[in-house]
């Protein structure tokens, strides 16, 4: 097996850079290495797509319905404090 050149990333390393990549906190050289890897590796592109989908789903989590009784109690508390 040819020794991987220094600027190349293994998939195992690429998945560890995904958060920094999405956060925009990778330095220029690491970002280029990762983007080069992604361009050549469909599996890691899939991995990144799944991560983006995970984040999209997290953003869609709905708040639980608020119990109207709890809300009324809190409003009563607020009212008492005002008077």
């Amino acid at each position, binding site marked *: 097996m040819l020794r991987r050149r220094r600027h190349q990333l*293994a998939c195992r*390393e690429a998945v560890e850079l995904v958060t920094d990549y999405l956060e925009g906190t990778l330095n220029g050289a690491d970002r280029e290495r990762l983007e080069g890897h992604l361009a050549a590796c469909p*599996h890691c592109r899939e991995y990144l797509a799944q*991560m983006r989908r*995970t984040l999209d*789903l997290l*953003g869609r989590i709905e708040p639980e319905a608020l119990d109207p009784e709890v*809300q009324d109690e809190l409003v009563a508390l607020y009212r008492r404090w005002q008077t």
Partner: protein
Amino acid sequence: MEDAELVTRLRSGDEEAFRFVVDRYHCSLLRLARTMVPSRAVAEEVVQDTWLGLVRGIQRFEGRSSLRTWLFHVLVNRARTTGTRERRPSMGVSAGPAVDHARFRPDGEWADPPVPWPEEVDDRLVAAQLAERVRRRLDELPEMQRQVVILRDVEGMGAEDVCDLLGLTEGNQRVLLHRGRSRLRGMLELEMGKA
């Protein structure tokens, strides 16, 4: 309603404004509180204390942060002073790799690569069901990962605000976010396989 208007109305005793903020933030506060104290009952008390904190403190609110961030700060302080769960700042920061190393060949390339998920369908019902599954999985994360993922990805708060709120360095915040998100993707991968 904008913060500035809300704050003015809250200061003048406007019940409609109060009802509005409770409706908007109560569940978010409860979600975070549940990661910080041992039971739902205690979490509910902490959130109630937070609202009391708003009622008492709104006159002093200076608007340097958003009302939401301020409420979260009050909540975190209340949760910590209940002292029911010890704070272990290092917990969860250094947990395992993003993907089980058994899934890679010795040279680091994928041996067991991620299988493409079913096409994203533009169906709000399906998306809502999947989001509900993610929500349940969220509860399985270690507490600090859960706190960071909730604030960043569910609430959509910025990294700097989250560091400030939880007393984390930027680096630790990112590591917790990375571990939490990676684990959730892994859990979803299993769910998608079942679907």
